[in-house]
């Protein structure tokens, strides 16, 4: 039962990543991200309890604090502070993007179909799902023009990796996990500073404008 529930949360995370793709407002994207992190944290907790791995609880807690609370709040803060236009600007229409996400999920299954993967607890589905979240994250980064949405895409990607971790090996070794969380946090802070500086210098954070190194 718990295993099924965990798998459900993981699937939910995939769903939220598609919501991020589908959202046309920045806040909606950030909220989706927070929900995604939340569902992953839930899945983690479930697996931790099934397998009784103590450090996974820590991971889940960190997930909850850092990714579901601090980072979304940070992003809200930056968006408000810099008066960023709330609309998400895309290179590909949202309709196409969502269709594309479906393709990505299919591709992920195709990719690992041969490998016969299953972890100790979770079923076969989890690895391809996490790969699709990763690629969807990358897809967001490729198609979304604003700097802040790119951060969002990156964070989705990162979540995908975390999903893969808990699904496959029930988390990485503790200090690696800690390092990763540290890095993500610092990375987001640095990226935030960059966004701040950029909006100061360019009055905009549309990456379309960042093409002075055109050759």
């Amino acid at each position, binding site marked *: 039962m718990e295993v099924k529930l965990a798998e459900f949360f993981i699937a939910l995370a995939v769903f939220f990543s598609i919501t991020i793709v589908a959202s046309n407002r920045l806040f909606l994207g950030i909220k989706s991200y927070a929900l995604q992190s939340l569902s992953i944290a839930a899945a983690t907790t479930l697996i931790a309890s099934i397998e009784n791995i103590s450090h996974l609880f820590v991971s889940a807690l960190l997930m909850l604090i850092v990714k579901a609370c601090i980072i979304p709040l940070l992003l809200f803060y930056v968006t408000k502070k810099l008066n960023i236009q709330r609309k998400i600007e895309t290179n590909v229409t949202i309709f196409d993007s969502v269709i594309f996400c479906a393709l990505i999920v299919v*591709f992920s299954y195709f990719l690992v179909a041969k490998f016969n993967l299953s972890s100790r607890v979770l079923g076969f589905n989890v690895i391809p799902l996490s790969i699709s979240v990763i*690629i969807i994250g990358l897809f967001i980064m490729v198609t979304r023009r604003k700097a802040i949405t790119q951060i969002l895409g990156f964070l989705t990607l990162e979540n995908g990796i975390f999903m893969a971790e808990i699904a496959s090996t029930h988390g990485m070794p503790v200090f690696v996990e800690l390092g990763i969380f540290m890095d993500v946090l610092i990375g987001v802070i640095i990226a935030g500073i960059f966004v701040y500086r950029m909006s100061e210098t360019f009055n905009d954070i549309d990456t379309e404008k*960042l093409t002075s190194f*055109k050759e």
Partner: protein
Amino acid sequence: MINLFVVGISAVLLGAALQLTLPKKASLKLNYLSTAFGSLLVLTSSFLMLLKGYSNTFSFFSPIPLLKVSFHFDSLSEFFTFVISLVALSSAIYSVGYVEELVEEKKNVKLFNLLYSFFFVSMILVVTAWNGFYFLIVWELMSVLSYMMVSFDYKNRENEFAGYLYILMTHLGTAFIVISFVLLFLKAGTFDFNSFEKLSLSPQYALIVALCALIGFGMKAGIVPFHIWLPYAHPVAPSNVSALMSGVMIKTAIYMLLRFYFSFLPNLGINFGIFILTLGTLSALIGITYSFMQKDLKRLLAYSSIENIGIIFMGLGLTIIFNATGHQTLRDFTLVGVLFHTVNHASFKGLLFLASGAVLKSCHTKNIEKLGGLIKKMPTTALLFLIGSMAICALPPFNGFMSEWIVYQSLLSTFKLNNETVRLLSPLFAAALAVTGGLALATFVKAFGISFLGNPRSKHSENAEEVDTFMKTGMWILALTCIIFGIFPGLIFKLTEGFTGYVPTDNLFHLTSLIDGKSSVSNAAVLTALLTVFTISYLLIKADRTVYETWDCGLNEYNPKAQYTATGFSQPIRRIFSLILKPVRRVDVRRKAFKYYTQQMKVEEEVTPIFEKYLYLPTALSITKTADFVRSKIHCGNINAYLFYIALTLIATLIYINVR
């Protein structure tokens, strides 16, 4: 002997190091005299080594894998050492006077001196190297040093372009040389030339190696169509350097080709020989045709180098043909011809470049159209230039004739072969060589006649002065060489005996061909006869002359501008050969109000360098265009696109992994 050699090289290096501490003028003397002294020692030692058949190898291991610093002395390398140090000797003595100009122009003379001495040493290292890896290092060292001297006058755009083109072509050539060495390495397991010599390769493999070597060394030698750098680089280099570059540096390529074709790959087929022969003929023809068209004295000489390299290649091709058909003696004989023309070209082209340097120093221009009448201002230089010209036109009794004669005789000897192609082609090649000879004559009549004879065409040549003793001495050494090798061809046969294995039956003066053993030439006899008739007629028919002005159709307003120009002189050939020369003519007419009277008219004629215009330029342009396109597409500056590349690459890689 080897000690003498080492002392010589160390003298050069020591001189180059010590001169850095001296003031400019003194540094110049010290450097060049020590170089001259060193090269004299090297010359002597290589001469002695050649006579005694000395052969030895010295190796020093390096921790870098496959690299071995090894020096080898055998008759071939000694012969080239001999040639290099001969030209270096005269050029060094010449430089004492010549380089003063750089002092006056406030250039960094000490650096130049250093480069010059190192350049000489690097050439010696090239011809004594005995390991492929090490060879490439010294080979490129030589190229880089010469490149630095070519572009020494860095402010000049011409030098900049010439240097760039030169080093680029050299680099391209080196890539092919690397391939040829590595191909040999694959079979031999080491880069030692020893092991290369022991290989027995399949014909196809050998052919690929031979072709790579041909392209690689052909770039350096300046064979058509890889010659394009040569007419730019040689003219802009200081003349003492051009003498070394044109006289001997491009010969180092010949040296390596000889090694490749006769030591490493002795089983090249007859068709490759025909190919080389054809290439050589083309070079000779194209080189001399363009040479005739030039107005720049040094560029004219540079193009003529292409011609002479072509003649050497003709000999090389014939040697391969004879080698393939098993005519051992003919092969040996022709090989002597190749080496003979190498040393000859070194001596007369060195001489001519030095002489043109003297003109340049004295008149500050290389443009023939602005010279004229120099024979009275610079009598010695004029005489020396004339000697060089006669030698390069292969006129008896000078040395050029002897080597060209051997090539002719080898071409003639092909009628003994069983190969129809060769038998039919070789008279045509002989005809091409004959045109080359005729055009060479025309070229040097133009070069000497327009620049030294008649009246000065500009202020440049009016104020010319004879150069100093050092420069004259340097040139005289080479001029004497031209005469000595012309009269004593047996000397070269003696010196090359070790490599070619050809033992002549004649004495020093006489040269007999192998067709029937009766056709022979003797410059000494011709010279004696000429001198006899000349003396008798001179004494009998006394020169009793009245001096009067040149006939100017009775107008009494003689103007030096009435003289034939260099452009005019070459016009008939330009018109006749317009198919390959593609002359471009610009006529600029300024009329007065009444349109039938022209006030001023300016006619300029130029030839199109076809290889550059129709081969290199389009290639380069299409490459840069493609590059521009690809660059602007890939580096569009948009981060989304950049991320997209990553995504795409990732997916492609994953698919690859999955499919495997």
